[in-house]
């Protein structure tokens, strides 16, 4: 698999370490009253879709950036990649 790195161009997936679902960016609020249940879901439960999946890859053998890669889990086709730090930023700008 080749991952289209937004800064470095297409890079071999071998250079990356896989973490998992990109929803892991959204860490729950630890001071919320339901924090225990929210963290349990956050740590252990996954959507695990068959099809398009947004996921976190770490460019360990490269520029050590975290990417959010959009990939089809049925075909292994990589549909896109963006810098993970831009994902929550763009969300804030949208006011979400």
């Amino acid at each position, binding site marked *: *698999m080749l991952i289209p790195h937004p800064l470095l161009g297409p890079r071999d*997936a071998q250079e990356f370490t896989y973490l*998992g679902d990109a929803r892991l960016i959204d860490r729950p609020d630890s001071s919320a009253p339901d924090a225990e249940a929210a963290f349990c879901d956050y740590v252990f*439960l996954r*959507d695990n879709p068959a099809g398009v999946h947004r*996921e976190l890859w770490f460019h360990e053998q490269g520029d050590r950036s975290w990417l959010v890669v959009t990939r089809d*889990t*049925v075909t*292994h086709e990589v549909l896109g990649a963006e810098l993970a730090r831009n994902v929550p930023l763009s969300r804030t700008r949208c006011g979400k």
Partner: protein
Amino acid sequence: MKFSGFRVFAEALKGHTGWRPLWRNPEPKPAYDYVIVGGGGHGLATAYYLAKSFGRSRIAVLEKGWLGSGNVGRNTTIIRSNYLLAGNEPFYEFSMKLWEGLEQELNFNAMVSQRGIINLYHTDAQRDAFRRRGNAMMLAGAGARLLGREELRAMVPFLNYDNARFPIKGGLVQPRAGTARHDGVAWGYARGADSHGVDLIQNCEVTGVRLDRGKVRGVETSRGYIAADRVGVAVAGSSGRVMAMAGMRLPIESHVLQAFVTEGLKPTIPGVITFGAGHFYISQSDKGGLVFGGDIDGYNSYAQRGNLPVVEDVAEGGMALMPMIGRARLLRMWGGVVDMSMDGSPIIDRTQIDGLYFNGGWCYGGFKATPASGYAFAHLLATGAPHETARAYRIDRFARGHVVDERGAGAQPNLH
């Protein structure tokens, strides 16, 4: 129709005209007492024990493709009970005991061959960990022997004992472990279940789960609606997809695991050898092919095929361990989709939906568990209570903090 040596002889005299199909191919009925989703090893074993050992009737197994078309025909056929943790070891030893009586039980040749397994160690720390694991195995009645380098060399002289990075210092042996003919296991259970009145319904994909006020009423399928008050899901690999129909998220990711077989060679590898440090394990089939594999690819996948980096990694591991296989030609390689759970251990439990039961999360080790998984799941479906060896496999163990994490890797499925 009972199989026996006499029967083979008698059929030979009659030109083999008396053999009949091993199971019926019935039309689905509108309602059953028990519906098992998934006609693989675990689903068929569940149906068999539910009918035979627990005396239940009106049971159907629904299979999307043909019986045994998933992971039961894609694994590397190893059976063993060499675990450390108290939540695991009694369960897998229960499975091992069922394996030992399986062929008599089913009157079917599953080619169970207790040729032993060797886990290699390379450091003092690893040896101490293996000694502890061996003790845990002996406490559960599984039996284990810790071999030093020279004892091991007498047993398997062809290994590279002086690898610069991982010199072999010895191994932990479970003599009762071995291999079984994976398809034969599925066929044997299917035949046994069918003869006890279970309807095995193939080409019947479950497309929805009908719920009513938190209770299961039945399943929508590609062959129409089938009503059932108790639905057991045993579809490891696709657990996420099926349980999502009932609105559940699971502590599971689906990953792809690859396996390989060479052309047939003369008998050369006496049992199963695992080289964990080099991500490689190997055995030899009765037909002569070297059957081997390594790590999972490590990213979410439903593709039933992997990528080349893992092929290279496995081949390197094999060459580091036993350079003699370098000239063997690879015949086939394939992938299977496995449920990687958050602690590396399976789940056999009821769900918060009344009447819906779940069996999954087998990671890359479901085949060896087939008999015990079937028995424990049947026990749960029939009695509503977990089997005594499967009490640690509750789905709420993650919330309670009672994970069964053999590797100690934490909630990172691709590290188990």
